[in-house]
């Protein structure tokens, strides 16, 4: 378990974007039956989700959000000197999506850009990485783009994930500021959890083939291919209960806050059942524990910034807030941040309809 402290970096603003298409969970009654859908909805707290069409990539969502945020901040595109893209759903195997995004955004050649492959923990990891790099003095303004379009690789007949996953892209603007409060991070990994939340095919371990795209009956009658995401929800729950209270306690301890000092605990929005149990276990009152899952589902790495903009916008626009941000899941990987942020720019949520094809011209 690593603990880090970063000084002199502030969050200047956050913007998010979701695909226009909305899927209602109740519409899956034909596949799973009424009882299963009812129980899943009651447990997860999810009623509908924004899902990306086959034309929309994570980077498209982040691109729209970035244009909006830079406009709202009145920042010139040329002033950005760092772009970190955190996602598990890149445009291509190569080049890095951060490079593609850099080109489409028209950022300057002096801007450093790279990808980081993380999911549920990715926002907090990205915040740590970007702010730590900026603390070095090499960068003045940075963008952290985080998001996923996992719904595109979910089998509609796998009830462990079919009704759970929504898509979103976010961008957070960071800036050097000597007056900014310190940020504290607690980060960790347990790679023994590799197989519990995984898309087995499509990398170099198991390249895609006609065999990997074949959907077959798997555990508990779920139908899925090796190109689809697999999640063992029970193991995710156990991992979460064993990990999150400790990483949150470590971050609180390091920064020297008690529970009362915290204005809000913004957790990765895994599902409502997990979140409510965590809140009870950690003795956090409901009003300090925003849940933003009913209309979005589990949006992977984007769920923390999405919760900040959809649930905390009014306060974050007006005054400083002491926040605990905690992401946990695929990897297993987890990270918690204790930060004081605000007032900041919170852009209105962007809704993205189909985008023009962006394949390179020669393909």
């Amino acid at each position: 378990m690593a603990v880090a402290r970063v000084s002199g970096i502030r969050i200047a603003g956050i913007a998010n974007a979701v695909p226009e298409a909305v899927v209602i969970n109740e519409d899956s009654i034909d596949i799973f039956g009424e009882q299963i859908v009812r129980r899943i909805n009651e447990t997860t707290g999810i009623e509908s989700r924004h899902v990306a069409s086959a034309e929309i990539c994570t980077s498209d969502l982040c691109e729209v959000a970035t244009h909006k945020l830079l406009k709202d901040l009145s920042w010139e595109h040329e002033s950005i000197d760092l772009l970190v893209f955190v996602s598990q759903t890149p445009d291509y195997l190569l080049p890095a999506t951060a490079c593609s995004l850099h080109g489409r955004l028209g950022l300057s050649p002096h801007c450093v850009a790279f990808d980081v492959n993380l999911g549920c923990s990715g926002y907090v990891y990205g915040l740590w990485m970007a702010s730590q790099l900026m603390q070095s003095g090499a960068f003045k303004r940075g963008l952290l783009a985080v998001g996923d379009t996992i719904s595109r690789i979910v089998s509609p007949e796998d009830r462990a994930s079919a009704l759970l996953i929504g898509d979103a892209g976010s961008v957070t603007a960071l800036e050097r500021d000597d007056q900014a409060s310190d940020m504290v991070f607690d980060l960790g990994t347990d790679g023994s959890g590799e197989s519990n939340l995984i898309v087995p095919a499509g990398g170099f371990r198991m390249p895609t083939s006609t065999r990997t795209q074949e959907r077959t009956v798997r555990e508990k009658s779920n139908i899925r291919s090796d190109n689809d995401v697999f999640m063992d929800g029970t193991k995710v729950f156990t991992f979460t209960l064993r990990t999150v209270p400790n990483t949150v306690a470590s971050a609180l301890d390091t920064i020297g806050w008690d529970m009362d000092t915290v204005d809000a605990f913004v957790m990765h929005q895994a599902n409502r059942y997990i979140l409510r149990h965590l809140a009870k276990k950690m003795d956090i009152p409901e009003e300090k524990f925003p849940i933003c899952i009913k209309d979005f589902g589990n949006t992977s790495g984007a769920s923390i910034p999405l919760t900040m903009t959809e649930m905390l916008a009014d306060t974050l626009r007006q005054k400083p807030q002491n926040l605990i941000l905690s992401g946990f899941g695929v990897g297993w990987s987890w990270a918690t941040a204790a930060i004081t942020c605000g007032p900041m720019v919170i852009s209105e949520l962007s809704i993205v309809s189909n985008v023009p094809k962006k394949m390179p011209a020669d393909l």
Partner: protein
Amino acid sequence: MSKQKFLLLLDDLFEEDPGTLSGEERLEDLEIWDSLTALGFIALIDDEFNLIISGDEIEKCLTVNDLIGLVQQDVVE
């Protein structure tokens, strides 16, 4: 905790009337037993015994009594 009280908690989790479960039931015969119920069981054990059991331990259980056996030291007959 008494086994009787624990069974009443499981009746509630399994959406059965109080006093329905005896412990002998095979989990595969209970229509509601699935991963969602397993989540509820993990939460119940955490609430009542401050113990986090793993999915692997639950997967080995065949009967309701096997589930109770996971916290045997805390349940009296």
